[in-house]
């Protein structure tokens, strides 16, 4: 076999350009696989460890006030292992040197011995007195706060000066977003911790609690526990217990991990599929050239297996080189990606795992795909009887196409005619080349999807739907006359009040927690949108909901929904679904405010308002809002957009950029290989033309014209495939937190097209060099 090994080494060297291009394509595919899988595994592992270390709760309940004696009743519920009662309060915060209103959730510290949701201290110590707090790290970093710094906070209308003693992390707030907001805003929303007693005192909770955490026995089903718990706590103003799977931070994290699962499945499949296709084309081509050599080896007595193995080794060496490169690059980028996530989620630690299983399966998947591509070619070559193989291959069969009889023919130059003829008479070969280039263009389109989709999402959510400059929420229900007070505030030119209420919606056996927002009928600051994202009016009566929520509940317009209100005396009502709205984030339900007030049998009350504000008046308005204790939260639309693009979008964009680089590599690899193959297949023909007196330019035009035509045909097809693959990816990655729209901007198509065109141009220059150096005499000497 040693001779075959030499042959293998020389073949690899001879094919180095193409081999390198294929190796890069394989490397890109493997890298995508490794990045996605390792990031997914790292996130999941870190999540598990962090939850374990901080004794993360299984069930969460918020209520108004319950006596501590009830704790023993709850402990007695089946499967409950640990009960932790907490005090929870909303605070307004005055950060020195920061004008915008800031709010915070203040929680009592977990029990030091058997407490749940334990804190991970980054700096300093835990607070002890009524003048001390610990703050979450994201907030501290956003304001550059350190232990020893002071803040003013307002609890229950009473302002106090507190000192920060520690900076902490909590598994409960890995993803921290103010209730009602879509995206994190670390500058304006924080989580503080206080010692239990002073917080009880501030909230008037002596001997009572208003928040509860449960840890269940391993493997216990939380549903029966929640049912019991809701019955026990209903009299104490509970809005209903939620299981860990519905906890905001956990849900977001899980969703993020699931997104990576999708990336880890679909993208490598696309990338490796293209690599396999490429390898197939190149191996076919190579083995065609090797036909007589295969036959000679067979005649010498090498068996099919030995020969098949030899050529598979050739493909295998290329794949192995590519895989090794892919694992190295993927591991490096994956570790970087994980660090980005650690920062984003503020994990106390992040264990980047690049398991041998991921490496092995990445290589196996790519090798499998690529060898599958090579196998047919190898099989064909090894199957050929030696005597037949040593004879020249019969020329391929062609047929006359309609083009020859058409009038168009006479308008074309000889070279153009030859190009058209060649393409039309070899539809399969042309088709495969088109497909290869189209696929690489499509990968580029998928690579650009993230950025376009995020731009679009921001546009729909923050320019079409939410148009209020500020959204304020009150600490409790208020009479609608509060509108006049808001309207009198500096710079406010429009006020639209709203009533939001937490509900559980039920349809048949399906149910979802959601909120119904009661909006003004002629509202302009918050608009509901139809399928084309045009505003729709809210009917007088009945409920509207997002298509995502309707789908989850299996509802259609005209159906009746059971609404279980999770506030006040928790009435249950039936409402008809009268319309579907379309949003890209959230699963909300909407009614006219008047109708909602009537449904809840309450007066004209509101819980918040949308404001249209003069930008220049914002600082004065903020000062006023801060001194209005009723306002518990303020959301600035521009700030939300900025924080969204900075944080969430940031992660997607980083991966998007990585993807784009890998996709570009693949595109260049495919185009270069297609050209190289086209050249070697046509070398003899091109040499014939040169002998007949065709100039280098004319000969080049025939080859390049063919490739240019195929490229131009491939581009729109690539666009369509790209759109289709994007839709496939989006379909797989949609969650109830947000839905990525399949929006691809013209610039993305343009980028994809230019990468392909640049790759084609560079490859063309190489081909021109090949044509210049073509040895006419020897090209014509061998039998056809």
């Amino acid at each position, binding site marked *: 076999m040693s001779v075959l090994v030499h042959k293998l080494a020389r073949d690899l060297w001879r094919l180095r350009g193409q081999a390198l291009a294929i190796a890069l394509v394989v490397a890109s595919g493997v890298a995508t696989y490794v990045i996605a899988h390792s990031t997914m595994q790292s996130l999941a592992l870190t999540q598990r460890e962090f939850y374990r270390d901080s004794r993360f709760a299984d069930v969460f309940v918020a209520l108004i006030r319950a006596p501590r004696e009830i704790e023993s009743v709850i402990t007695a519920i089946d499967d409950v292992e640990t009960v932790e009662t907490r005090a929870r309060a909303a605070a307004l915060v005055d950060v020195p040197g920061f004008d915008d209103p800031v709010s915070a959730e203040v929680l009592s510290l977990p029990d030091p011995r058997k407490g749940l949701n334990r804190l991970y201290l980054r700096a300093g110590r835990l607070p002890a007195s009524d003048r001390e707090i610990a703050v979450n790290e994201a907030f501290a970093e956003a304001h550059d706060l350190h232990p020893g710094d002071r803040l003013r906070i307002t609890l229950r209308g009473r302002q106090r000066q507190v000192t920060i003693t520690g900076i902490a992390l909590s598994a409960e707030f890995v993803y921290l977003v103010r209730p009602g907001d879509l995206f994190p805003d670390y500058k304006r929303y924080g989580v503080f911790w206080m010692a239990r007693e002073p917080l009880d005192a501030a909230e008037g909770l002596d001997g009572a609690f208003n928040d509860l955490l449960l840890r269940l026995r391993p493997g216990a089903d939380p549903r029966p526990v929640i049912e019991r718990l809701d019955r026990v706590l209903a009299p104490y103003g509970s809005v209903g217990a939620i299981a860990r799977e519905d906890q905001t931070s956990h849900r977001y994290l899980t969703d993020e991990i699931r997104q990576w699962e999708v990336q880890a499945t679909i993208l490598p499949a696309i990338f490796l599929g293209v690599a396999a296709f490429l390898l197939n084309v190149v191996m076919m081509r190579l083995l065609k050239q090797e036909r007589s050599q295969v036959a000679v080896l067979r005649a010498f007595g090498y068996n099919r297996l030995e020969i098949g193995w030899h050529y598979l080794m050739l493909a295998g060496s290329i794949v192995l080189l590519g895989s090794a490169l892919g694992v190295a690059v993927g591991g490096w980028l994956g570790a970087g990606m994980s660090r980005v996530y650690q920062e984003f989620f503020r994990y106390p630690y992040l264990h980047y795992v690049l398991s041998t299983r991921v490496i092995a399966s990445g290589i196996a998947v790519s090798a499998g795909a690529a060898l599958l591509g090579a196998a047919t070619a190898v099989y064909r070559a090894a199957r050929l009887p030696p005597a037949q193989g040593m004879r020249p291959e019969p*020329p391929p069969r062609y047929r006359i196409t309609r083009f020859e009889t058409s009038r168009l023919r006479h308008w074309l130059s000889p070279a153009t005619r030859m190009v058209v003829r060649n393409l039309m008479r070899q539809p399969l070969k042309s088709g495969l080349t088109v497909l290869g280039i189209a696929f690489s263009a499509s990968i580029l389109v998928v690579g650009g999807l993230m950025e376009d989709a995020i731009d679009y999402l921001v546009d729909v959510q923050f320019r079409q739907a939410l148009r209020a400059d500020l959204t304020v929420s009150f600490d409790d229900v208020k009479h609608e006359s509060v509108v006049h007070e808001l309207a009198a505030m500096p710079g406010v030119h429009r006020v639209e009040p709203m009533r939001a209420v937490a509900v559980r919606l039920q349809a048949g056996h399906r149910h979802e927690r959601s909120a119904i927002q009661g909006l003004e009928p002629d509202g302009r600051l918050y608009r509901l949108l139809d399928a084309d994202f045009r505003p729709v009016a809210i009917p007088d009566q009945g409920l509207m909901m997002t298509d995502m929520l309707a789908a989850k509940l299996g509802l259609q317009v005209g159906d009746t929904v059971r609404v279980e209100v999770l506030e006040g005396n928790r009435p249950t009502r039936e409402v008809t679904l009268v319309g579907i709205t379309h949003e890209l984030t959230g699963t909300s339900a909407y009614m006219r405010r008047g109708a909602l007030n009537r449904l809840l049998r309450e007066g004209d009350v509101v819980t918040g308002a949308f404001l249209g504000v003069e930008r220049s008046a914002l600082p004065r308005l903020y000062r006023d809002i801060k001194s209005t204790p009723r306002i518990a939260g303020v959301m600035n639309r521009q700030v939300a957009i900025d924080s969204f693009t900075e944080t969430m979008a940031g992660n997607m964009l980083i991966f998007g950029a990585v993807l784009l680089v890998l996709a570009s590599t693949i595109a260049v690899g495919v185009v270069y290989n297609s050209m190289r193959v086209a050249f070697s297949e046509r070398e003899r023909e091109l040499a014939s033309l040169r002998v007949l007196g065709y100039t280098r330019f004319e000969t080049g035009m025939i080859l390049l014209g063919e490739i240019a035509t195929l490229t131009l045909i491939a581009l729109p097809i690539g666009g369509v495939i790209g759109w289709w693959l994007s839709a496939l990816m989006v379909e797989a990655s949609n969650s109830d937190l947000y839905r990525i729209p399949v929006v691809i901007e013209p610039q993305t198509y343009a980028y994809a097209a230019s990468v392909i065109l640049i790759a084609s141009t560079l490859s063309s220059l190489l081909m021109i060099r090949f044509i210049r150096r073509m040895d006419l005499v020897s090209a014509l000497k061998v039998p056809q």
Partner: protein
Amino acid sequence: MSGTQPAGQPPVLLSARGLAKVYDGESPVQALRGVDLDLRAAEFVVLLGASGSGKSTLLNILGGLETASSGQVVYQDHDLTRAGDRALTRYRREHVGFVFQFYNLIASLTARENVEAVTEIARNPLTPEEALTAVGLEHRLDHFPAQLSGGEQQRVAIARAIAKQPDLLLCDEPTGALDSHTGIRVLEALDEVNRRLRTLTVVITHNAVIADMADRVLRLSDGRIVGEHRNATRRAPRDLQW
């Protein structure tokens, strides 16, 4: 082999003086060692030689596919020795027709289209139909190479070579890949073209029988012309046998 022009003879079209060719490499090969040669319009010349005698190299240099290492080739009054790629391409395009042992037809083109590939760029061509009729293939116009026999394919190659009405037709072992019966049909086509169009035809072969159909026979050995004789009468190809 002298430059003088005997009275009544056609003019010299192509002449070579002191032509030498060395292929560089680890062990340089001297393919031609000083060849002097005059070829006249309408002549039918057969170059005989064993493999490695340098006959293909000579043909390629005469046809502008290669350049000599030293010496001179003059076509009419153009010095090919000093011509660049552009000039050689023009020379091939306007004056030379080639026929190779392995046809070198373009597989995706029909017989007619293969000829068209030349007529489309030539200045004063025959029509593809005329050229194919000249080689007896008027009934195979729209067949692809794969649908033609080896002899037919070679005749298409000849039609393609003569369609531009070249001044010289260079044939490298045109019957090398064919059986004798088919080979004779191909030689008939060459003979016919030479007589009718008065094209200077040079055929290189190692098959000595073919020499009988030539006006003049040159023998090459080890890169030199070692013999020359004229046939008193040219034998018709159909009378040849091998």
